[in-house]
């Protein structure tokens, strides 16, 4: 027995020298001398030699002047690659995607062809009827408890608002405790559903949103108030609007525009996705640099066509655009965004 162990450890020791010492060291030496660019992570630098990033790793772009990479479950943190881990049947996935689509969705046919859906979502929301029944917000919270809870926990001002509400509505809270004896001291998130039901009753056709106003002292102050227009309504309630209007034809969005990649660091988008973003990007640069939109659009279109690549002339894979690559080109051509 001991003899076998001794043999094993000796073998492991020699193997460590060969597989962990010699093998990677020779590879390292060859990599560093023959293809140092690749072996060091395909790093791009600016004119001063400072590192901008890696051509292989997505970096965040927030400005409208730039093409944006795919959504990232890792928040583009290149030290902690990850995916959303959502199952296809997970409502959280559908909710996340619907919130992106809502504000950008357009009609595909009819009188309003090409126009945004968002104003109609707001009008529908204000009427406060879903599936023929009143109180959209209450129905929303009932159907998706965890999403309602995430609203409460996702932002400290939301949590504080619900806490204040629960103090002001002791009777409602006591009633909730009676129905849920296992939770005698409910937290804000426990009360999320009953909070929204109550809110929906008090403020039909409205949703609690952060509103920034100039206070009496001249400084901007943010508070939670009932609102019936704006991005929260357009994004959160788009999914319900869609199920109330199943027969309306909308323009589809490219899948990679709204889905998170496996690594969270996908450096590419499809050419289709880039074309989808082209209007926004061109309009913004034209505005910044006082140029004609049509000219800019044509120029950037040419850049995209030039940068789009598919191996073996498209025999393998489809046409993709490296986001950093095109944005570097935009930066070279137009300078810094305003």
């Amino acid at each position, binding site marked *: *027995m001991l003899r076998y*162990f*001794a043999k*094993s450890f*000796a*073998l*492991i020791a*020699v*193997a460590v020298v*060969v*597989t*962990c010492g010699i093998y*990677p060291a020779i*590879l*390292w030496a060859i*990599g*560093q001398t023959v293809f140092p660019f690749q*072996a060091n*992570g*395909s*790093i791009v630098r600016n004119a001063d030699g400072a*590192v*901008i990033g*890696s051509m*292989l790793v997505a*970096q965040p*772009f927030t400005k409208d002047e730039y093409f944006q990479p795919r959504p990232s479950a890792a928040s*583009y*943190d*290149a030290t*902690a*690659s*990850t995916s*959303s*881990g*959502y*199952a*296809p*049947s997970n409502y959280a996935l559908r909710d996340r*995607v*619907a919130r992106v*689509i809502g504000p950008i969705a357009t009609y595909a046919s009819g009188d309003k062809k090409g126009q945004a859906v968002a104003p109609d979502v707001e009008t529908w929301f204000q009427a406060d009827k879903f599936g023929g029944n009143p109180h959209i917000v209450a129905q929303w919270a009932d159907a998706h408890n965890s999403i309602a809870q995430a609203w409460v926990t996702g932002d400290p001002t939301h949590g504080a608002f619900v806490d204040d509400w629960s103090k002001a509505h002791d009777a409602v809270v006591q009633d909730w405790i009676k129905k849920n004896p296992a939770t005698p001291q409910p937290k804000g998130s426990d009360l999320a559903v009953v909070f929204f039901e109550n809110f929906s009753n008090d403020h039909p056709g409205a949703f609690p949103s952060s509103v920034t106003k100039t206070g009496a002292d001249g400084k901007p102050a943010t508070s939670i108030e009932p609102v019936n227009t704006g991005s929260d309504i357009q994004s959160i309630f*788009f*999914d319900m609007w869609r199920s109330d209007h199943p027969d309306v034809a909308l*323009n*589809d969005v490219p899948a990679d525009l*709204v*889905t998170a*990649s*496996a690594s969270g660091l*996908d*450096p*590419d988008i499809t050419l289709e996705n880039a074309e989808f973003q082209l209007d926004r990007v061109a309009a913004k640069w034209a505005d910044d640099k006082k140029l004609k939109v049509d000219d800019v659009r044509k120029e950037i279109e040419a850049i995209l066509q030039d940068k789009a690549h598919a*191996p073996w002339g*498209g025999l*393998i*894979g*489809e046409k993709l655009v490296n986001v*950093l690559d095109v*944005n570097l080109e935009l930066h070279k051509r137009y300078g810094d965004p305003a």
Partner: protein
Amino acid sequence: MFRTVTGFFEIVFTLALVVVAARPLGAYMADLFQNRRTVLTPILGPIERAFYWAAGVKSEDEQEWDAYAISMVLFGGACMLSLYAILRLQAWLPLNPQGFPAVPPDLAFNIAVSFVTNANWQAYGGETTLSHLSQMVGLTANNFLDSGAAIAIAVALVRALTRNESTTIGNFWVDVTRATLYVLLPVAFVLALVFAAFGVPQTLVGSIGAATLEGLKQTIAIGPVASQEAIKLLGDNGGGFFNANSAHPFENPSVWSNILQNWSQLVLPVALVFAFGRMAGDAKQGRALLITMAVIFVMALAVIWKVEAAGNPALTAIGVDPSQGVMEGKDLRFGQAGAALFADATTGTGTGASNAVLESMAPISGLAAMFNLLLGCISPGGVGTGLYSLLLLVLITAFIGALMIGRTPEYLGKKINARDMQFAMFALLLSPALVLVFAGGASVVKIALDSLGAGGPHGLSEIVYAYASSAADNGSAFAGLNANTPWWNVTTGVAMFLGRFAHAIPILAIAGSLAAKKKAMPSAGTLPTDGPLFITFLLAVIVIITLLQYLPALALGPVAEHFLLQQGTLF
């Protein structure tokens, strides 16, 4: 249509490269394990002798099956102990540029078992948990050695089938040394170089700080990735340098690297089947096994590709263009075909790496992947493990077939008796025992259920998949499951340990018994084992056995989820 054509081209191209390379590689391995000189003997001979000298091995001595098995188990134990020690001590050891603390005991146990059993089940994020020393010394060395050990077991079984009245089945120490030194090391070396040329980093720097084009700060984790990447896939290990595994752009930067990744997972298992045909002196026997593997592989591939390309109906309903297919949890550069091929290859072999998130794939893709695991990873199987697991099923099929037509059960001229079948049934029933008992337990224990990342039937899929993967020593996972908790670390660790060792010991016992038997000449009474009839029968036995064991679990998990998703029910 265009996507179908390009995807088809990519798949055919990859598989053709596998077969083209596997044939000569198989011939080379057959020579190597039959003590013949090979082309690399002049270069590697001195290093091989250094191994024997250091370990005190007499290379010409052969072992009986029990000594071979004990050597295999104790060698695994030694690997596990040394890896556990490195992980627990990494905070105080060199090459820890990020200053990571010691790995906690339950996780260290899990990693140690995982990397020694070739499962590479990763309950942790590589770039956020392990120092460079742990990655390089701890994991890379075991990636070589455990694959070497698996090849050794397969080779021992093949020798037993092809020898006549032999008391010995080879020398474990010699087999593991040769498999590592002559097979894994040179191929991995060439692979790693090509990977590096494609953009996989090979540097000792821990991370790079960048100021992005918009002036934001981004830190990019990096390291000696290429050397680990090559053996990760070639040895069917699957443990990635980064959390996102082969989806990470540094592990798998392009469509080309992805083709090579798929190739490298498949090439050795297929080559071993060619080696088997050659060692058996009957290429047709090897071909029969290869066809069996290929049928399962292609069917699973067709299913996965088809359903992934159809897109997610829950997203199509709100205006997502379905033409790209299911894109959540997929990086664009691989395409649906490249991702489907990878998902099939990684579960059909023992690799368990991933270039797309299985959790986010359509339920039926999850079903196909899970089915690959529940078959025991035999299409074409892990390096070594695939061949010996399939040979086990061949013995059972030959036994059943012969009894059905009233002949003496035999395979390759070796009579199969009741004792051989008892060992075979033990090895066969081990996996359902582990999977169903653990999954049943996890379905009712709160500390296990707290780790689930999905509600409804998908939650059950996560549980069954986790144990199917660990019992088959595959290591792939539904990423939604938070497996880094004491419950999951310990139970999957035990399943991986038994899945490897309690499975391999009866196989070596059968090898011992078969080696000692006389090799009979084929007669009119012999059931041929190389024709279409036998292949069909073998496939039927494999599928029926698996469905009998797991149908209820599969119906309640992925199948139920599929129908609910189609009718719009979300969780």
